[in-house]
């Protein structure tokens, strides 16, 4: 069931890959703009690079998440999906995993932009990718649930970030801190505790949102 739902989501995303490119360009443009907020001081830019990367990813994520129920809203497809003898939870996890993969990919694609613009290179690439994957999971679990609500509402572009941003503060904070430690060096070996915090946030929200999704979509 879950694999069928996931397959459908991934197929949809593959067919709308132009949208992924557009979101990537949006994120890269955001990273470019952030540097104007600080000025051309290389040392400062390097110091803030982790925060800028995550803000760029967060802003881009609202675009992908807000669009993620677009197909279901057309021709009342959502009702058709719910009529299937499938658990709504499988629908939720299929969509959430697809969103998570897309955001992780987006984050990884933004790394080179960050390295070039802010001179924020690192050799601990696997660690960085792990943090991006965990942080993206923190965004996509509540993001998918809220997208299911706001997709059916007027002015969804405003409402989704309004609901999502306060909620993901811990995930954002832990991701920025961990990324920053990876880039700027980690003499006290603190990265591990931030990753644990991020993983526990993910565990809580991946289970809680899966439980609540059924309530959100039932008629």
């Amino acid at each position, binding site marked *: 069931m879950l694999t069928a739902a996931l397959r459908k989501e991934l197929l949809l995303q593959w067919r709308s890959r132009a949208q992924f490119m557009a979101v990537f360009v949006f994120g890269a443009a955001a990273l470019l703009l952030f540097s104007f907020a600080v000025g051309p001081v290389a040392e400062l830019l390097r110091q803030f690079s982790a925060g800028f990367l995550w803000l760029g990813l967060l802003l881009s994520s609202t675009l992908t998440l807000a669009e993620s129920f677009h197909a279901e809203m057309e021709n009342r497809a959502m009702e058709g999906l719910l009529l299937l003898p499938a658990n709504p939870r499988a629908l939720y996890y299929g969509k959430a995993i697809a969103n998570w993969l897309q955001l992780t990919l987006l984050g990884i694609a933004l790394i080179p932009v960050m390295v070039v613009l802010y001179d924020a290179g690192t050799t601990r690439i696997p660690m960085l990718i792990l943090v991006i994957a965990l942080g993206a999971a923190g965004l996509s679990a*509540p993001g998918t*649930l809220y997208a299911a*609500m706001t997709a059916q509402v007027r002015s969804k572009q405003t409402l989704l970030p*309004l*609901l999502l941003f*306060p*909620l993901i*503060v811990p995930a954002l904070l*832990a991701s920025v801190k961990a990324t920053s430690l990876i880039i700027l060096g980690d003499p006290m070996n603190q990265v591990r505790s931030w990753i644990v*915090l991020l993983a526990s946030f993910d565990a809580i929200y991946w289970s809680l949102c899966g439980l609540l999704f059924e309530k959100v979509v039932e008629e």
Partner: protein
Amino acid sequence: MRVDNNRFPRLPWIILGLGILFLAIGSYIGLFVAPPEALMGQVQRIMYVHVPTAWNALLAMTFAFVCAVIFLFKSDWKWDARMEAAIEVGVVLAFLLCCQGAIWAKPTWGVWWDWDPRLTTTAVLLFAFLGILALRKFVDDPARRAIWSAVATIIAYVDVPIVYYSVRWWNSLHQLQSSPSTVSRQFWLPLRMNAFGILFLMTAFIMLRARVASMRLEQELVPPPVGESV
């Protein structure tokens, strides 16, 4: 359809009166009778409203969470009305809390704002619940509005301890919470009086607001008149 949140029509007004009375007496003692604090001087007197506001803001949000859980299990409309009331009152209290905190922090710490766990958590909570109020405004169907805002309330409330501990790891400066057991006896009476005063005010406001919400729900839930074409 009746949404009954009006079993004791006069009760909220009595509680409101009690709240004003307690708050007046407590504030009088706090401002004029209790001695100034040794280190912070007169500025410290804001504690008599600040700390009770903090307790009650958290209490209102907790009540909203309880209402949300009960609504999801029982689908009883009066809990939706109560949740709406509790969220609104909680938002007002959290906003007041931030303002009072800023007024106290400027002369004491030298800044209006600081990235301390409690401050940051209050701000996050304020924005999270404001978002839920916005969601309620944008959804017209009462059933969806009730379920979605209940779900969002549960998610936001679960977030509170996580925000608190993550910010605490990140940065900390705020002094430890004041409670009647950490302050001396002379400060104890006005603190307690005001805590009950604000508790009564909050209860009365939630009851009155829930009544208004119930009345609106009753109107929205009226079945469309039979025989009329849509």
